[in-house]
């Protein structure tokens, strides 16, 4: 409830985008519809609209990222905003102070939007709570908590292929425990009305609270994939191997890797998604990643439209009313 309050302005418009949790269905659909409209810009010779002219967007990345940062930057540029990329190396000092100091400095430079990625869960919320009233904060991934724009990209990709959400079976496979993407996806899928959300992973990679999120938990890939419309593979973070949560990459692939044979258990028109980057031969076979059911590269293109939608929607908070033709 508190998160929803923080994310919306007085007119119930999106003010910050921190998590998909607690946002109403209408708002998620509005994000998808707005993104759909932005797709026509790729047909223009000049791939830009003047919507955010004069606004300054800061990509504030405390954790490395290529794809997410690049598509946020492209989205901002296609909206005619000015973009500043700041990569802050992880600091051992008190995180609260460091963040607030950085924030105050950037506000003093009259920036309008912060796109924040941070290794600690809750960092984007913290910034949203403390930033100046005119500033919007977009969460580009915080710890293992949320990655809402990635989740909306995946919803957009699903809607383009499947139209209706309320008839779907969606399987999320892999490291659910540490995945901010999975958490945001589960909230979005459930708000959009997907009746059958499955998570498939070894016991060590499923969070204890999983079943309270309204998902069906499977530890066996064959059972979990039976008759699904959508398969979302998550990246296996290799550092998990050292923490003894998993035996070996080879063993993992044998049990949970997506191959053509496993894919045949799903519906014939199943789509396969992955937020990237893919560990080929660990989460999935190359023949699947590059195969006819894969929509992985479409997810990347949709990333720009979704981020344009969220950026323009958050920049219209607390506007005065009045209209002319």
């Amino acid at each position: 409830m508190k998160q929803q309050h923080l994310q919306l302005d007085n007119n119930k418009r999106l003010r910050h985008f921190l998590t998909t949790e607690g946002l109403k269905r209408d708002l998620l659909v509005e994000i998808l519809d707005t993104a759909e409209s932005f797709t026509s810009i790729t047909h223009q010779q000049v791939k830009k609209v003047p919507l955010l002219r004069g606004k300054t967007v800061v990509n504030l990345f405390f954790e490395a990222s290529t794809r997410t940062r690049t598509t946020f930057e492209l989205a901002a540029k296609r909206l005619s905003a000015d973009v500043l990329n700041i990569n802050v190396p992880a600091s051992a000092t008190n995180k609260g102070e460091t963040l607030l100091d950085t924030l105050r400095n950037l506000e003093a430079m009259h920036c309008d939007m912060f796109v924040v990625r941070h290794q600690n869960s809750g960092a984007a919320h913290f910034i949203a709570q403390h930033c100046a009233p005119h500033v919007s904060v977009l969460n580009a991934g915080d710890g293992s908590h949320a990655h809402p724009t990635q989740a909306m990209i995946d919803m957009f990709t699903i809607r383009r292929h499947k139209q209706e959400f309320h008839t779907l079976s969606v399987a999320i496979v892999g490291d659910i425990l540490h995945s901010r993407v999975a958490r945001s996806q589960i909230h979005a899928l459930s708000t959009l009305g997907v009746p059958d959300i499955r998570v498939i992973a070894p016991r060590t990679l499923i969070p204890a609270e999983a079943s309270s999120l309204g998902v069906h938990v499977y530890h066996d890939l064959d059972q979990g994939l039976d008759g699904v419309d959508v398969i979302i593979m998550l990246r296996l973070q290799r550092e998990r191997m050292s923490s003894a949560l998993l035996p070996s990459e080879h063993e993992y692939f044998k049990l949970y890797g997506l191959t053509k044979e496993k894919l045949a258990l799903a519906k014939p028109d199943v789509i396969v998604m992955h937020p990237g980057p893919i560990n080929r031969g660990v989460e999935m076979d190359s023949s699947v990643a590059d195969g006819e059911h894969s929509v992985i590269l479409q997810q990347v293109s949709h990333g720009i439209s979704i981020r344009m939608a969220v950026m323009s929607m958050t920049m219209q908070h607390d506007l005065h009313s009045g209209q002319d033709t």
Partner: protein
Amino acid sequence: MALESPDKLIAAMAEQLQQRIDNQQINNPAIVGIHTGGVWIASDLHKRLAIEDPLGTLDISFYRDDFSRIGMSPEVKPSKLPFRIDDRHIILVDDVLYTGRTVRAALNELFDYGRPASVTLATLIVRSGREIPISADVVGAELELGKNQQIKLKGPGDLSLEIVDVAPA
């Protein structure tokens, strides 16, 4: 005030446009309507003039000059220009020409798709209250309206015009 039916006005517009196309020897024009009312009229003109290329549509929401004041329309639709704009004669169609800001935004968007040979502006109603120097080339009807009056085109089935009073700003 008695208003002509949009049907009759559109028929007259089609005639004017045909004359203009003949007089200026315009070869192979294309039609682009501005969402939402402009598209209804453009679609009718497109049939009457037997234009070869499919109808183009523009949603100018992303090009408006009042985004920072009123934000985006919640019903924004993708623009569709299913032909190349470069060196083409474009007939741009809207329902009402009032302040001129919508047409300015539409021209800006159009030129982001390419460089047309010419743009002809056709509007069903031209009303008083221009705020920027834009005028229509082909007009269905002209009206004097007060600041607190609005004229609206209703559709998309049988088109009709309605004048409504709005609260003073």
